[in-house]
């Protein structure tokens, strides 16, 4: 059996006396999209940052492409991973073109501009039109599209998304979710999507992992999750999202 693209094994992370992650294990296969769902403070962003080597863990291990994150150079690790935070995190003093070319440029690519051009086309922000703009000259949705282009420009094997649609209005969010679904079909990139929105998880993910207080409650396909919640917490989450009773 092939090694999963992303794997967490019994991960423990404490902040002071509070356990943010309390023995989390999860495996994501190559090409798969897994949504990590939970409320604020459930530990989902902490796990995502552990995969990036941004948050040192107190127990267990995280693997990216079969390699223990603590055993590799974190800078090289991160350059191989695409990352999109909630607010985009574009560099405000760099143009759209330069932002999109960031990772290929860091990696020393021969033609970072070419990579940026391709990635910007993928997200519907052609370089000819938007390349010279500053981030502040874009709408929130456009900024998120550029953030996706930046994350994808170096053709990473893995994409880590931290509430990438969380700050957008409903219409823009729907547009960007559609864009993401399309580009995932085109690239087949392995994705870990952190979200608090069960609808979004159901729409975009192959499997959903529900996290509560640093523990995994259930990992299942969206259909399985809705039809047979493993714990009362998962059931209540589904009920609150209005997904109970097999609706749609």
């Amino acid at each position: 059996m092939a090694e999963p693209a992303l794997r967490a094994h019994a991960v423990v992370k404490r902040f002071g006396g509070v356990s943010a992650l309390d023995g989390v294990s999860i495996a994501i296969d190559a090409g798969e999209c897994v949504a990590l769902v939970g409320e604020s403070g459930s530990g989902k962003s902490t796990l995502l940052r552990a995969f990036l080597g941004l948050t040192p863990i107190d127990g267990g291990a995280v693997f990216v492409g079969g390699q223990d994150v603590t055993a590799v150079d974190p800078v090289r690790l991160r350059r191989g991973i695409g990352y999109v935070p909630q607010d985009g995190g574009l560099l405000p003093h760099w143009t759209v073109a330069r932002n999109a070319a960031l990772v290929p440029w860091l990696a020393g690519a021969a033609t970072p501009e070419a990579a940026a051009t391709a990635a910007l086309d993928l997200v519907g922000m052609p370089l000819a039109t938007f390349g010279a703009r500053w981030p502040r000259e874009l709408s929130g949705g456009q900024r998120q599209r550029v953030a996706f282009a930046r994350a994808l420009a170096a053709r990473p094997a893995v994409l880590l998304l931290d509430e990438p649609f969380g700050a957008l209005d409903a219409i823009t969010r729907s547009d960007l979710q559609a864009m993401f679904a399309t580009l995932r079909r085109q690239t087949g990139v392995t994705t870990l999507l952190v979200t608090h929105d069960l609808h979004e998880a159901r729409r975009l993910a192959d499997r959903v992992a529900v996290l509560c207080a640093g523990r995994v409650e259930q990992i299942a396909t969206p259909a399985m999750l809705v039809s047979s919640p493993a714990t009362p917490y998962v059931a209540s989450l589904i009920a609150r999202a209005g997904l109970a009773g097999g609706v749609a």
Partner: protein
Amino acid sequence: MIGGRSIRTPFIAGLVGLASLLAAWPAAAQEAARPPIVIGSKPFAESYLLAEVFAQLLESRGIAVTRKAGLGATEVAFPALVAGAIDVFPEYSGTGLLVILKAPRVGDRAAVFDRVSREMARRYDIRWLPPLGFENTYAMSVRTEMAERLGLRTLSDAARHGASLKAGFTADFIGLPDGLPGLRSTYGLAPAEVHALAPAVKYQAIAAGSVDLIDAYSTDGLLERYPLTVLEDDRHVFPPYDAAAMLRGVVARERPEVVATLTLLSGRIDVTRMRRWNARVEVEGVAVAAVAREALVDLGLVETGAAGATVATPRASLSLVADLWSRRAAIAAMSARHLWLTSVSMLAAIVFGVALGLALSRSRAAEGVTRAVGVLQTVPGIALLAFMLPFLGIGVWPSLVALFLYSLYPIVRGTVTGVRQADRQAVDAATALGMTPRQVLWFVRLPLAMPVLMAGIRTAAVTNVGTATLAAFVGGGGLGDPIVAGLALADTRMILSGAIPAALLAALVDVALAGVQRWLTPVPLR
């Protein structure tokens, strides 16, 4: 467009600039065999004048001299003498006794001089030449009209009316043991109000009636210009203040011709002469060098040459603009020196301050260290210079170090604040996408910090131009020279000839840095 240069390597440019500026260090003329005798003075008219008399007399006998006029105060001038930064300056026996030796007053005029010259030779290897002949002691003065109305003749009389007197004293008189504290303890004189006044304004203040009692000096040229009555020190609280040349012992031994030449002045200058010469400078506005020349001719120590024959015209006959224009070469040279002091100290402060700020920005010690740097700014200039004197002497080095220290705080504060406030999401994303910490600093934090950082640098630079006038206190040159001398000589024009170019320089530096800021600040942040 997608190049690697986000900051246009200002530090490299700064270092290169610093190196070239240091290479242009103004070198003192070095005569290996016979170094020039360095003559110092303190910043008041009589001290300038006596130092200039010393200088011209030595020059007339073929002895090379260097002038370091207007050194901060006794606390600067005396350590400079002991350290060998200057060779000779005019001093007073009473000051030597109270300020330098910190001894209680003893006996009469001769006894004090004897005690001071013996103690200084023993403790500091400093040689006092025989006194010049006059005393310059405190002449506590009231308006003659008031003296007659209240029947004031002595300080004891004044003490009886103390509760109704407003006093205007120079700052050091208020603190010196034989000053106000001495008046209080000996006479019980307790003025209703005590105002600290600059020497230049105290006569105007008493003439206008703003104050009733001032600490004039017995040789002040202005003393006879106003209707004032000097109160007798009937309980002898003031020690004798015999004027004399004070010389480094090693110079006295190795250059006997210097001692012989300066001793020509001993016993030759009485109080009337000195007061008249001071009046030429302070009241009539004649240049110090011209009055020194007149004095030496008057004493028959130099020939009545072409220069001596024509009585120097007071500058006051020219309009201010014409006066400044006539001295444009000197003003340009002082401005260049001023700009040089500011540039070198600022470059060093920027390189060090930004580096320190960057180092501190990720440290918990940032607040404490930044505050400590801020405390440096509260140290008065004279105190800082006096403290550094044993290590750095006088001249450009202590000036540069003082300016460097005074410029650090706004730069460190600006750097720490700017870097810490830099867009957290951008910094986080840049790290998560694989920038090294150094790349995050160079390509993200620093460019984003630039507006705040540059605000700190501009504040420091404009302040630096103003503060650089304190270089005059330690012979560092620059536009402080005419300001300090002008304040001492009550010469408004001389003050303006330093203050106006300094103000223009400050504005110019700010405009130039605004351009640099625009160039360094990323477009969307402008």
